[in-house]
């Protein structure tokens, strides 16, 4: 019998169905995250699930981990406070593209630089869903949204390049369709000591589709399936061929010193100077 693990992890007193639209990728990504945690054999007691504001940020309410639904853009500093206060905890963050990269962009790059042992899943659906379909920092140039009626002027961030350049230890991308790859990336991210960023490219079949005619969730998942290429494959493609592709795979896998580990070293130094102080 195959197990649908998610049913062991739903919060007992929370009512379902959840808040997400039919065919939305957020539930798929949450399922992948839960399975990654399950496969690592983590106890629910040691996990804290943090988010900011937005569609995907509603996720922590649904699973039976202790959780914090924070304020817009600030999931990472909340998570940083939790992790540094108790480094034994496994801290996992869900953050949307707007949450993580626009209003929370500063926290995002600094969390990468700090390299604290937190895993953030950036659920990238290229749009602000909860507020009605405004252009997000990952919306492709020319795409339409509630604040881009003539087509988006801005260029999109490449989440993975940004994270890798800012110093995160682990950076990977998968689409919601590639469930098992996504699960594996999240698992590797959690296992990695240091800051891990997993970009999960997901469909928004309500708002993104409304403005850009991309069809239902099923259609958008098919499109994600067809657009996804591995990093190896991508290396063989010309820029023109790569135009509409989503490159998936691992973009950084480093072992820079993790922040809490660094802090433990610092404590040793501090204890020596405390002895000096006390000997006065």
């Amino acid at each position: 019998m195959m197990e649908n693990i998610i049913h062991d992890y739903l919060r007992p007193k929370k009512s379902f169905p959840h808040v997400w639209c039919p065919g939305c990728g957020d539930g798929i990504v949450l399922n992948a995250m839960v399975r990654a945690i399950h496969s690592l054999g983590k106890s629910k007691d040691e996990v804290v699930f943090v988010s900011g504001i937005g569609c995907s940020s509603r996720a922590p309410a649904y699973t039976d981990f202790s959780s914090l639904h924070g304020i817009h853009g600030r999931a990472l500093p909340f998570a940083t406070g939790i992790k540094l206060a108790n480094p034994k905890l496994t801290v996992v963050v869900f953050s949307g593209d707007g949450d993580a990269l626009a209003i929370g962009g500063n926290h995002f790059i600094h969390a990468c630089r700090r390299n604290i042992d937190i895993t953030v899943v950036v659920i990238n659906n290229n749009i602000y869903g909860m507020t009605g379909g405004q252009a997000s920092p990952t919306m492709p140039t020319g795409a339409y949204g509630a604040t881009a009626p003539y087509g988006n002027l801005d260029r999109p961030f490449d989440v993975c390049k940004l994270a890798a350049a800012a110093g995160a230890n682990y950076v990977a991308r998968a689409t919601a369709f590639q469930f098992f790859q996504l699960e594996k990336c999240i698992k590797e991210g959690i296992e990695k000591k240091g800051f891990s960023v997993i970009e999960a490219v997901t469909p928004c079949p309500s708002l993104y589709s409304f403005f850009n005619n991309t069809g239902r969730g099923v259609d958008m998942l098919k499109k994600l399936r067809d657009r996804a290429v591995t990093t190896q494959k991508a290396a063989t493609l010309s820029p023109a061929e790569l135009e509409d592709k989503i490159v998936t795979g691992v973009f950084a896998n480093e072992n820079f010193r993790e922040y809490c580990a660094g802090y433990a070293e610092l404590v040793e130094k501090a204890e020596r100077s405390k002895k000096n102080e006390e000997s006065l």
Partner: protein
Amino acid sequence: MLFYKLFKDKDGRKVGFVQANEACIEAALLAGMRFFAGYPITPSSEMASVSSEKLPMYGGKFIQMEDEIAAMTAVCGASMAGLKAMTATSGPGFSLKQEAIGYAAMNEIPCVIVNVQRAGPSTGLPTQVSQGDVMQARWGTHGDHPIIVLSPSTVVETADLTFDAFNLAEKYRTPVILLMDETLAHMREKITLPAENELKLVERKRATVPPSDYRSFDTRFGDVPPFEPYGGKYHFHITGLTHDEMGFPIVEPDDVVKAMDRIHRKINNNLDDIVKVKQFQTDDAEILLVSFGTPVRTCLGAMEIGRKEGLKIGVLQLQTIWPFPDKAVLNLAKKIGKIFVVELNMGQIINEVQRASQGKSNIKGINKYDGLFISPDEILSHILESKG
């Protein structure tokens, strides 16, 4: 790098000649503060520096965040993980922290926020004194919310009110703001900190129910819900959305009112425990100076000089400014016909004094907002002027 030294006196108490910024952190450490998240800003920066040096010695954590907002949110996170946590900032940084302060109020997260006031608005006069953030401390974040704000006038009192701030935060599961000012922050005075066995520390109330019965905001044990930190058998959810006892979002009008009423009631039903004032020679006073923070010192100076010249001045010091000490103000307003409200702003707390005194006294403001500190002479000349 510390710019002060503490020595142990014969009773084992730490003694030193320190700035209020330093005294605050020393007291916080004694109060059990084990997490400080900060961002550099004048005139509160020394607090971050002292914390960065001292916290690792005490098994605590210091982190310099990327901005003021991050510092405040990290404090919320650390407190939810079970540590007594604080941050310190000044005007512009205090403005930036407001949303997260509201989050702490909404989710009943114990924490202490120090705002060393400098003159504003905007960048204002970064190195000069002001008390312009009185209303912001009460109403800075959006929405109705409970808050406790304390305001010390001396370095010694800074330490005392820092203990109080942590105790109140823990006892009532609420953010507490310590409203200082630039003059105090950088003033040096001798302090004697209590020995550890002399401290009366309050720790947050813990859950007594089994994990399956735990609620994030349990009201079955009174208006202050028991707290469990992240990382144990208790799995719970918190959110800035208006929520029920489980921490799940609510929209039903009756539920919303119930939730809002409780978080306010836990403060408003305990005013006698929370609100502190000090009275100086109010028994025979004919003129009352009402003030808070550093100008209280000047008021006391004016009282001393004035009394020598036959002016029967008394002083009411508001150590707690929010919730506002209505009772103390009204009682004195009934007795004393003339009240001067001394504040380093264009007139903020005076409106509260007027409201609380219910027309029982004649109230005038003595305001200074030029970035300089106020002198006893200035206060006396205002008093004399009004006498005509």
